[in-house]
């Protein structure tokens, strides 16, 4: 069994300035952040890196947030997904997403504390789920 690498927070937004802001915000946090404007690059990252949390913008030209979340969940259902949206009325995820697929939706403009709290909670959620999963094979 492979050794666990430090968890990665993957950030996707088609607006580079948003990515830079979020990375600044999370710079001093004890986890790695990977940021990209391209949802497909995000999917590729997910295949090669131990991504724990995904923060994604909702509306992007290539692939929107909900579709990205659906594909991320299909690749690794443990990834905890946070949606960021600039749309005042799009707090409700697309009905096609299974319930619970979106951990939290945060509206832009965000409150910095809200982001870091959400990421910490998401990581804790991820760890708990991972711990449960790890324990399962050891059980008789």
């Amino acid at each position, binding site marked *: 069994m492979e050794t666990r690498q430090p968890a990665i927070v993957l950030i996707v937004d088609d*607006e580079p*300035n948003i990515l830079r*802001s979020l990375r600044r915000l999370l710079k001093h946090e004890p986890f790695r952040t990977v940021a990209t404007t391209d949802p497909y690059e995000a999917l590729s990252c997910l295949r090669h890196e131990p991504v724990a949390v995904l923060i994604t913008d909702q509306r992007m030209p290539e692939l929107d947030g909900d579709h990205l979340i659906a594909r991320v969940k299909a690749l690794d259902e443990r990834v905890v997904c946070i949606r960021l949206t600039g749309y005042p009325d799009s707090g409700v995820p697309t009905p096609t997403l299974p319930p619970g697929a979106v951990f939290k939706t945060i509206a832009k403009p965000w409150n910095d504390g809200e982001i870091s709290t959400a990421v910490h909670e998401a990581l804790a959620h991820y760890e708990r789920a991972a711990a449960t999963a790890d324990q399962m094979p050891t059980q008789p």
Partner: protein
Amino acid sequence: MYRGKVLVVDDDGAVNAMLSDVLSRHGYHTETADAGEQALAKYRRDAYDVVVSDIKMPGMDGTDLLRGIREVDEDTSVILVTGYADLASARDAVKSGAFDYVLKPFNLMEFVREVDDAAAETRRHREQREEREKLQVLVEERTQDLEFQSSVLQLEQERFHSILKDANFGLLVLNGDDDGVILINHQAKRYLQIRPGRSVEFFAEHFGQLFPDEMSERIARLVTRVKQTGKVCRLASFTNDEGLILDMQSYPVLAAGMLRATVIVVNDITERTQLEEKLLMSSKLAGIGELAAGIAHEINNPIGFVASNTRTLRRYVKDLAELVGEYHKLRDVAAAGEACTEMIKKIEALEDRLDVGYVLEDMQSLVSENRDGIERVVKILRDLKNFSHADDETPQQVDLNTVIEDALNLARNELKYKAQVETNLGELPPITGHPGQLSQVFINMLVNAANAIEHKGTITITTAVIDDRIVATVRDTGSGIAPEVLPCIFDPFFTTKERGHGTGLGLSIALEIVQQHGGTISVESTPGKGTTFTLELPAAHDAPKHKEDADGNQAASDRPDR
């Protein structure tokens, strides 16, 4: 052979018998009377072709008998028989209506010829009378016909007049050659503000004498245009002194290539115009509504990072202030000539902790990113302001390319997830108009184009000058418009969207705005392939200064149907 019926009158029975006898032998049926009174009584009872009467008889003589016969009819020929002694009165009798006279003693052959002639004369008279009577009947029939027709005509005319009089539109008909007023109805007098004291129904006066100068000029402009084009022409709506908003159009009445009359129809469109203004307003709101989410997104994104960056900047400033505080202490220690090593170590540790190198570098990025973000927000707000003041502005010289770019800025967020926008904007002369309204036209068309695209498509905007007209096309690679729907797309409230998702006003308002600018919109569409809207607008130097001239004739619109 029967030749006629003769009444022979003589007080001498022998003469009667002789004449009857000779006439019978020549084919006449004869009757006799011994006296004038008896003859007249017979004559009244029965019809005769010829009456042969002696002049000189006791009682009623021949002349009296003739008079009596003439009272009954004019046709029967009367031959008077006389001796030389009475020749004068016989001649008088011929003057007063006898056919002829014969002298006694009789030349019987001559007498018979005379009777033949008289009978022929009677027949001719009768035929003529019949002919006359037939003609008279015909004339009477025709007269009745004409009277009937004329009463129908009069009724028609009265009905026509009352229709025109009470019509809710103004009607003014001018003579083709001298512009004299042929007809004017009540509403036309009111709408066009006929000069006080002019109240007759029909005139031959020149219209210029009936209306105030300003109105006359307006009519003259319209009439001139009708004469030049030979087509239906229309002035842009105007407001009269009563505050009514009026639409005036005119068409020529041609006969054999000659202008016979100019018909001017004036309609009160006050209510309609007010309704249209409300519609324009509500469609603008609807348009804004459709864009609102996109605009909010466009604003929330930069505000998001600017707000976050500003908090980071505040943290940096706090950190740097702390560092500067330490530097001040170091300066004081150094100034006092004391040992600095400890201070410097402390400062170095602080710099490490604060990551000062990164902070200084990052501050510059923060400031420049924030400036970017704020500029973006300012730009959106400026575009919105232009858009929302669409009605306040007076017409100005506008570069259509700028209008299109403004519209693209506002609609960008709506578009960028649906379509790639390609622009091919040629150099254009300015047009006279309302930039806000025109940008609304393009926003409506761009949003429509985006809606027509299901997944990913291309919207191409092209501008060019073709034949002195400014032509802009908006082409999308969307689903296209079905041919049966195409004629309706400019109709108000026509929408293909679900209820509650579109007002159906976008294109009708776009058409209205473009027409007010003296332009046209046409559309071509292939289902499954896409749609192209083509706008044509006059360049500023073509566009008339006067608002009323801005629209030209009715064919100004290339609406796909109707």
